[in-house]
């Protein structure tokens, strides 16, 4: 458990003082992927750097498990940092070292013996999928491969926590997806807590369990990803949700479907974090004597299942339709019957 208590950071510049993080409170559970989203300048990077004290807090506390990070001496902090991995937007690899040597660096710092180091490095290279590239220099790697090295390096000392500051912001969409899946795998395999900073809502949607929205140094909204998606309260949050779901007015109104529907019924299925969702349509079509026709939909996959809305036209005998609707309802999908032809 990571507890952040009234954490603040004030930067003193020549003519002003900037409060980058403002009395922030947060608690993050062990083993979860926690996302922090906010616009540029919201204080996200400052916040994540306060967690391992790359930035010294002006006030407040950070506690990881039972250790109060903010109270540690310099020497204790160095040891503690070995248990907190960090990955960066621009990878920050040592260009004079090969992949293998880069991954070995944190182990050298921790004083691990050579033979053990080599064994661990081989393991990590396999884990992040870099076999065959171990003797390349960073300049010979693609962005995605560099970030894989960054991840392997961050995991070398078997940390409890992984901090990611815009880890995919320098990558193209496909590479971003690959790196995000790697993070999910690692989270599942190693049970590691991941704190992830981003300004892209689809990153949150794809891999986070919980999310906090930051604005002007403070958390303005937090909760399970699906809850935040389905009921965004603050206007910033609404804007971020629109990044992924589109604007509400862009979603076609019910009437537009009606024009084309000549028989059967139109159903509005609302998914809020179901896990059995993908199969719903085909299952229903197989089990009941009905035909289903997808009219319109916007469903996104999150770590807690699907979220979004699907409009389907259902045709068949009235009895079968009723049975089908009951079945859909029974697997926890909200169903609304929008109209009859």
């Amino acid at each position, binding site marked *: 458990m990571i507890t952040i208590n009234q954490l603040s950071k004030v930067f003193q510049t020549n003519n002003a003082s900037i409060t980058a993080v403002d009395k922030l409170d947060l608690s993050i559970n062990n083993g979860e992927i926690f996302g922090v989203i906010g616009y540029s300048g919201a204080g996200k990077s400052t916040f994540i750097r306060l967690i*391992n004290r*790359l930035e010294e807090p002006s006030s407040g506390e950070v506690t990881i498990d039972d250790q109060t990070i903010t109270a540690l001496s310099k020497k204790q*902090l*160095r*040891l*503690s*940092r*070995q248990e*907190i991995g*960090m990955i*960066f937007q*621009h990878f*920050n*690899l*040592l*260009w*004079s*070292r090969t992949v293998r040597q880069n991954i070995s*660096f*944190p182990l*050298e*710092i*921790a004083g691990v013996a050579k033979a053990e180091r080599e064994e661990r490095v081989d393991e990590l290279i396999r884990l992040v999928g870099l076999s065959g590239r171990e003797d390349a*220099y*960073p*300049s010979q790697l693609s962005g995605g491969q560099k970030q894989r090295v960054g991840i392997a*390096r961050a995991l070398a*000392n078997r940390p409890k926590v992984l*901090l990611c500051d815009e880890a995919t912001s320098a990558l193209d969409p496909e590479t971003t997806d690959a790196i995000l899946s790697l993070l999910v795998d690692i989270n599942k395999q190693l049970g590691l807590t991941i704190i992830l900073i981003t300004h892209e809502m689809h990153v949150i949607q794809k891999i986070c369990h919980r999310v906090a929205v930051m604005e002007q140094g403070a958390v303005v909204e937090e909760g399970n990803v699906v809850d935040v998606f389905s009921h965004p309260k603050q206007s910033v949050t609404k804007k971020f949700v629109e990044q992924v779901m589109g604007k509400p007015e862009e979603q076609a109104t019910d009437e537009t479907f009606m024009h084309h529907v000549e028989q059967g019924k139109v159903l509005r299925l609302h998914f809020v974090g179901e896990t059995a969702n993908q199969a719903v349509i085909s299952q229903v079509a197989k089990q009941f004597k009905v035909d289903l026709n997808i009219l319109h939909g916007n469903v996104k996959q999150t770590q807690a299942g699907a979220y979004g809305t699907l409009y389907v036209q259902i045709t068949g005998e009235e009895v079968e339709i009723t049975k089908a609707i009951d079945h859909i309802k029974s697997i926890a999908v909200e169903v609304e019957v929008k109209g009859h032809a």
Partner: protein
Amino acid sequence: MLNTLFPNVKWFDLVIATGETFYMTLIALVGTLILGIALGLLLYLTSKGNVWQNKGLNFIVATVVNVFRAIPFVILILLLFPFTDFLIGTLRGPNAALPALIIGSAPFYGRLVEIALREVDKGVIEAAKAMGAKTSTIIFKVLLKESTPALVSGLTVTAIALIGYTAVAGIIGAGGLGDYAYYYGFQRQASDVLFMCTVLIVIIVFVFQIIGDTITNKLDKR
């Protein structure tokens, strides 16, 4: 054939002089490397935003470096006579030139080292800190290691300046090709000697340049 073209050149003496020039350059280069890296590190680490940030110390080191760089080398040799006499016990010969050579070129190299260190990506230093690295690890395994190509190319430039300095020191009796050119070539108006010394110095400069460039290219993995 050679003796008719270069009637005044004493080949054995020329070989000795070349050896002395190499000797002075190499030993002074080692001294310059050590002192220059120390100065460069001190300049870098005490500057704003770095581990030993210290305005006062940074100002003192920077001033010393600037003053020594401002003193013309010929004058520096003269100023250092008492110090050299105390340290080496003589004012003549290649060894007597070493203190002035090192003190003359270390501040110059120190600045080059400082520039090289500044080029090291701040993000990489930050990453090392985040891994729990000690300051000494950051200095040796990150700062110096990552800037090696720049440190070597800076050292090459310094070595070439040093070869020039050894020739100046030669005129005050340090030995080497400068000494030989001045006493046997210039003062005895033997242009063949002067010519031969020039050719050899140019060759030495080229050798250093080629070696330096080769090492720099080998090390540069960017």
